[in-house]
């Protein structure tokens, strides 16, 4: 445990991890295109334990969003199964909450009404749901902005509204697809801290999709590194930094070593992705 770097492949959660919340079992996704089938996700397996924070990292176009949509039940699986609490999914599962990469706030609703949306669907009485929504608005640090419309907020604030809205549904498993990708570095770091704090408070299970190494190391218990085309598992890295974590750890040596370690694996894939982009091929 003292030696923080584990060079060997670690495919399983730590022995102390509780029973798995999410099981991705040999999942493959093929898209039928006019140029023939495209394999976006190839035979990926991953187990996420309750309360665990797992990231999936890979270069752009490697199939991360596809995997996100498969777990969220928005895309059909070509091969394999995904189970949540032992139940094979077939469409959006009630235990899952999703945060999308693009701005998904409802522009016609105020912040508070955006966040109260899932509670409204549950048929909660108005007074009660506004009170609950106010709690989640404060949780993401937007107290005082309840009556504003998304158009009046910055990108980072809108993303926080999306997160609060998803949290308000109290999903057992929080799925996020590059939620901070469109944000500047400072906002991204602070929002990462916020998400960690909330994750601890609510004891949330989180699966985060990212292409940002610092973010993956800062937040995760484990990081799955994906290969580029087809999207396979390259390695699953265990990040044994103490918790609670904050962005202040970024300057520590151990942190730096983890980042270097993940980058070593990712580098080859990223450069393949870049060559692909330069060749302009699909």
């Amino acid at each position, binding site marked *: 445990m003292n030696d923080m770097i584990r060079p060997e492949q670690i495919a399983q959660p730590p022995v102390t991890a509780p029973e798995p919340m999410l099981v991705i079992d040999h999942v493959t996704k093929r898209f039928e295109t006019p140029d023939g089938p495209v394999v976006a996700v190839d035979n990926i397996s991953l187990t996420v334990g309750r309360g665990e924070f797992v990231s999936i990292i890979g270069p752009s176009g490697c199939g991360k969003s596809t995997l996100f949509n498969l777990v*969220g039940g928005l895309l059909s699986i070509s091969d394999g199964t995904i189970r949540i609490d032992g139940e094979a999914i077939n469409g*959006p599962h009630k235990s899952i909450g999703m945060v*999308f*990469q*693009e701005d998904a706030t*409802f*522009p016609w609703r105020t912040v508070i009404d955006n966040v109260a949306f*899932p509670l409204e669907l549950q048929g909660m009485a108005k007074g009660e749901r506004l009170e609950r929504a106010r709690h989640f608005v404060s949780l993401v640090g937007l107290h005082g902005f309840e009556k504003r*419309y998304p158009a*009046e907020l910055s990108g980072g604030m809108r993303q926080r509204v999306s997160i609060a809205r998803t949290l308000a549904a109290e999903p057992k498993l929080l799925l996020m697809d590059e939620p901070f990708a469109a944000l500047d570095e400072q906002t991204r770091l602070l929002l990462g801290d916020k998400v960690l704090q909330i994750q601890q408070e609510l004891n949330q299970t989180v699966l985060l999709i990212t292409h940002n190494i610092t973010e993956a190391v800062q937040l995760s218990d484990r990081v799955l590194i994906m290969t580029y085309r087809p999207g396979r598992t390259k390695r699953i890295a265990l990040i044994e930094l103490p918790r609670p974590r904050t962005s202040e750890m970024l300057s520590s040596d151990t942190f730096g070593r983890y980042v270097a370690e993940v980058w070593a694996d990712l580098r080859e894939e990223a450069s393949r992705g870049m060559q692909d982009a330069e060749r302009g091929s699909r």
Partner: protein
Amino acid sequence: MSTVARDPFLRRWAPELTGAAVIICGFLLIELLVRTAILNPYVVPRPSDVLLAFERIVVEEQILSRFLVTAAEAGTAAVLVALIGIPLGTLLQGVPLLRKATETWIAGMAAAPIVLIYPLFLVIFGRSPWTIIAIAVLAGLPPVAMLTLEGLSAVRPALVDTGRSFRLSRWQMFWKIMFPAALPSIFSGLRIGLIFALINVVGVEFLINFGGLGPLINELAERYDMPGTYAAICFVVFVSIIVFVVMERLEKWLRPVR
């Protein structure tokens, strides 16, 4: 320019004041051209006479009660345009085949002078308000249906995915996401559709000499009451502008921020 920039009152109202100044200058110019007989005074009355004729058409020709007749026809047409156009646009969005089959047609209809088929409706409904309303509805429908279709088609995928992830039913997906997301576009459609309907109401009234303001313009013209005729036309233009402005205000009020 610098005084305009400094005085907050002038700065606030500068566009409106400029607009009013342009209209007044136009009036004065026409007045001058008519008085100097450069414009034939038998064809174009003096703007000052037109202004004076307003009192006459209000008191003697009951333009206000005639206006209410026209407004009732236009109002009925407007309600029908919304009640038919929005579901029609929604249907086209939901059934791609239907959309591909009819989209070009409907867009074409928006550009066509629909008023020309008034004889058909005259045969069906006779000289009644329904002939007027039918043509107005037909004229107002295409923009409403097209912009409803466009608005619904342009809803961002992230919003639809959000709805799916919250496991909305089809009904909830429409009313809680698709419809409100498309509302700005639907509103533009309604604004254009209602103006088209209003134009056609007055136009058909004029053609079949039945109803409110249209026949009034006919009568005044037949009496060679040129100032009265132009005053009535100005009144119609004025009402159209007010309808347009009110719709715009309503739209802003309904969606406070964009």
